[in-house]
């Protein structure tokens, strides 16, 4: 402690919202030159964690991560060492560990994980693949005529279930699969878009899903499995080829078309807490909030860049968007102001084409970019927490998905990468 006592001292008070790590809230005299590691040691000392039980902590002052020493922080903010500094500490997120990588035949353009353990990927070879945790491709669902750009789980109980896939061929297919007998079939085909499907999102109750398309529309569909085809005004097909492909799928028409975007809609996401609130974004530089029930575009937020990706966090209530510039923008959908970006996260070198909030933390999000990197952000920190390389070189990352403790990413290098993320859910229970 003698060595620690050298240099200027500062009085700090440690607080935490994670009750399991709470320590008495008394001011402690600590050397100002301490950094995160030193402070972490103090907490562990007070908690009497020893050896392997020692846990790394991160420290927040005024909602921002402490990245330098205390002295540098005080100097930077022109604070006196006389006052008591209140520092909030949270358990650090451990760096993601790469688990495995799943080889595909072509670019992996859509990935999604199910909480029960399956993964579904859409690829540019027009196939939808189902994977288990052993990196085995359990099913290859063929039926699309274009690159599959969106996948969405509907129901799953591990070995069997239903899912949706949208492709550049303008169709959304609902699949039923059963890994037990290795069978799959198309439940129905959603027909109506005149452009490629970019994104599919299921609402919280699971009775509706929305699809975004390059034809500048969002269409809302029910998940009810129809028995007969809806009547769809179709172009009279003169070509035999088309007829042969079509077979006898049950066709489904959208229940609703939301047309306000003036360019291709690139992303659509339902609010997980409200069944009828929908967020969408597109090439017209707008992020829109929809009331599906009333078919109203509630608010529109504009920026100056094409939006490629959008995700909503139920924990923080924020929208994160990836753009045709290297910046991730965070929006508060509840504000009326149309062009206020709450926060920007910069660090990527190229377009950010996919963003995914942590399913458990209100501060964490992951982003994938054309610069070939996946970055894990804590919005309280300046800069990215972790930067993961998706593949060799700077092959584009096309899609990421953060579910539970798994971060999936698919990209131009025909791989789907899985990273094990620390589950932060318990950290935020307070």
């Amino acid at each position, binding site marked *: 402690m003698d060595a620690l006592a050298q240099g200027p001292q500062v009085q700090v008070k440690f607080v935490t919202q994670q009750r399991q790590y709470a320590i008495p809230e008394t001011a402690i005299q600590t050397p100002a030159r301490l950094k995160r590691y030193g402070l972490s040691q103090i907490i562990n000392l007070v908690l009497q964690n020893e050896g392997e039980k020692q846990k790394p902590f991160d420290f927040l002052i005024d909602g921002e991560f402490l990245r330098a020493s205390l002295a540098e922080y005080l100097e930077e903010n022109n604070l006196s060492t006389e006052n008591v500094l209140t520092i909030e500490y949270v358990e650090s997120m451990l760096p993601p560990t790469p688990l495995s990588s799943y080889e595909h035949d072509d*670019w992996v*353009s859509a990935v999604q994980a199910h909480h029960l353990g399956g993964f579904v990927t859409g690829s*540019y070879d027009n196939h939808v693949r189902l994977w288990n945790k052993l990196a085995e491709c359990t099913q290859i669902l063929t039926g699309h*005529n*274009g*690159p599959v750009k969106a996948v969405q789980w509907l129901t799953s109980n591990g070995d069997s279930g239903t899912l949706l896939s949208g492709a*550049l*061929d*303008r169709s959304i297919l609902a699949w039923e699969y059963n890994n037990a007998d290795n069978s799959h079939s198309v439940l129905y085909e959603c027909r109506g878009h*005149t*452009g*490629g499907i970019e994104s599919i999102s299921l609402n919280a109750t699971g009775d509706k899903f929305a699809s975004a398309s*390059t034809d500048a529309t969002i269409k809302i569909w029910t998940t009810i499995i129809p028995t007969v085809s809806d009547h769809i005004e179709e*172009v009279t*097909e*003169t*070509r035999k080829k*088309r007829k042969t492909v079509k077979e006898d799928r049950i066709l489904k028409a959208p229940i609703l078309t939301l047309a306000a975007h003036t*360019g*291709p809609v*690139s992303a659509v996401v339902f609010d997980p807490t409200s069944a009828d609130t929908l967020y969408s974004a597109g*090439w017209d530089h707008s992020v829109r909030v929809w009331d599906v029930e009333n078919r109203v575009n509630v608010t529109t937020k504009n920026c*100056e*860049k*094409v939006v*490629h990706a959008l995700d909503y966090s139920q924990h923080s209530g924020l929208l994160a968007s990836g753009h*045709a*510039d*290297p910046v991730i923008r965070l929006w508060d959908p509840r504000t009326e102001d149309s062009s206020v970006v709450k926060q920007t996260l910069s660090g990527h070198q*190229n*377009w950010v084409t996919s963003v995914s909030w942590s399913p458990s933390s209100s501060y964490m999000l992951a982003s994938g970019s*054309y610069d070939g990197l996946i970055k894990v952000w804590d919005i309280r920190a300046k800069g990215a927490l972790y930067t993961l390389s998706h593949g060799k070189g700077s092959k*584009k990352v*096309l899609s990421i998905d953060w579910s539970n403790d798994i971060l999936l990413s698919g990209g131009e290098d025909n791989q789907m990468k899985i990273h094990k993320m620390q589950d932060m859910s318990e950290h935020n229970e307070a």
Partner: protein
Amino acid sequence: MPSTRPTRKAAAKAAPAPTKKSPSAKAVSTPSKKSAPATAFPKSKKRTVAEAQREESDDEFGDVEIDMASDDEEGDDEDMDGDDEEDFEADEFPEEEGQDMSAADIEDDEEDDDSEGSYMDGDSIVDSQEENDEEGSDFDDILNEDKDIDPNFGHNLNEPLPVEDDYNPIRREYPEIDAVYDSDSSTEENENTVGNIPMQWYDDYPHIGYDVDGKKIMKPATGDELDKFLSTMDDPDSWLSAHNYKEGQDVKLTAEELEIIRRLEGNRIPDADYNQYEDQVEFFSSHTEVMPLSAAPEPKRRFIPSKHEAKRIMKIVRAIREGRIVPRKSGYVPPKPKFYNLWNDTEDKPREEHVMHITAPKMKLPTHDESYNPPAEYLPTEEEINEWNELDKEDRPKNYLPQKYNALRNVPGYGQFIQERFERCLDLYLAPRVRKNRLNIDPESLIPKLPSPRDLQPFPTRLAIEFLGHQGRVRSISVDPSGLWLASGSDDKTVRVWEVATGRCMATYHLDELVTSVVWGPSKEVAVIAVSCGYKVGLILPEKIFSPELTLHSEEYLKAGFANAATAEANSKAQWKQPTPAEFDQGIRVWVHLQKAVKQVTWHRKGDYFATVAPDANNSAVLIHQLTKHQTQQPFKKTKGAVQRVMFHPTKPMFFVATQRYVRQYNLQRQELIKTMMTGVKWISSLDVHPAGDNLIIGSYDKRLCWFDLDLSSKPYKTLRYHQQAIRSVAYHKRYPLFASCADDGNVQIFHGMVYNDLLQNPLIVPVKILKNVHERVDALGALCVEWHPTQPWLISSGADHTIKLFS
């Protein structure tokens, strides 16, 4: 009388005592005895005379002058003396008693002196002279007498000189006189103070007067007439002596005194030095002195204004008032002297002073490295020497290399001296010495105030996506109207269709010739790509990526013409043909065969017509094809020059044709030439028309980009020369006020080009971004084509390095 004796004795004793005892006086007088110089002291003068006389008698004649004088007058004087004696005998008889008495006294004195002398024997310095002193034993008295004469001499002169028979028993050889200050006779005690009275008043008294103390001065002893006679006989110089009545003694006259006497006798001015005929100085003369010697005070008139001057001034003033005299103008400068001092060193200004004049520059002073022994750091290294040697003479920063010599004497002659002087002379001779009247304008201020590029966003700044896959130069690219798809034509004989957002190649169409031009049909209803390759133009339907409805519509649209073509007469210039089944499966729907190689295809805005350029086909270089009817027209019977590019007007039925140097605007409806644009460039490479239709830009192979305002002039509104190499392609953005150019240097320049609706306001052109080395140079070709995304501020460029790049 005895009462006086002791006084005399005491006086005699007192007098010599200081003279003899003073050694310093001796020391001074000793040398003077030998050389006998004439000293300034009156005493010493007398002494010299005495000395001279003594020498005369003792040895030979030392002083010729004096001797001559004395000799001459000896005989005369004897006679005279004899006469005088007779004259005086009667008169001065009563004196004799006194004289006798004094003579007796003297004898007594002699004895005293002797004793004194013996007493003084101890003084060795005086020894040598004591013999002489003893010989002239009475010298003290003589001395006293001698001194007494001095003050009274002048008085005595007036009196008849007693040159006579005075008996002088004292020997003539006088002792040396100490020229001591105290010896001055004026301080002698025994001075007779009776004044200028007839001395015969004292004839009856034993004394002759009183000294300063009031004591009687006793008459000196005088001998009788016989004594006088005897002494006169004995002393050949007795005629030289005169009687001092005051002292009652005979005094021997000096040579000067004798001379004075002689001059008086000759009725001459007694002072020999007095020049009575000296030149007159005229103090008061008619001549006016510059500095008058007068000390007279300033006269009053000097302080009073002159009435005369006032009169004259008033005369001038009156004349000026009446206008008879015109005063000089205020700016009058008196003429400068015509000539100047050629040899004036200090203020040499032969040239007229002029503000613009520049004096000749001075030679630079030598610096350290020009020293014969420069510090080590100034000495060049081996590399620097080599570098210096390799450089051309003109390029060398200095025309010498620093060299080190151990001593200044080792420094060789400077070989460049003459050359340098010559060049210096040339410099001075050729250098302009008069400042040009140059406007001092800050070049920055001439640059128009352009808005900062930051304010002109958005414009593409960074590379976003690379489209990789082509195996040859990508000569042409085109984005479909929705902005989702990109078509590219390449030298690898393929046309590829890419997904813009991801860079994914969605389709590849293999053709049999190099693809020179690829253009999407402008209509959203019809999906068609016009491709020129070789001698033909193909129309491709990219079926996979569009909805079946659109595909079907396009299909029918493309096919519709074949029925029509069957009826129409075969056009020799263009033949519309069905593709082979294999080609059909690929997506090619129509072929148009032309006579010559097609360089460019361009669509009319409605997507029905398209124009082709085949520069080699002379008059049919430009053809306009109608897709729906499969018809081909030749709009120009004759084409002037080699057609490079053609372009449809975006809104009006106009047609632009760019030949090598001119751009012509035609009205297709009226079939007439509207305007000819003089580009001023040598070879136009590319052309684009602003989406509003009033402006166009051209790029040229001589690196220029010209902006034409069609309403303004036929000359370029702006000519931009930013590229290092030939410009290959220029393009306007359809929505944003942006345009871009790409060139063989591999760079892409992006400009903000705002066109205002207000006709009075000229377009604003601001360079906003240079994308450097976008494409690698391959075979002297760099970036070949630029194209703007139709909806986003994204730029797509293709190059000779087989790549297509999207910038956002």
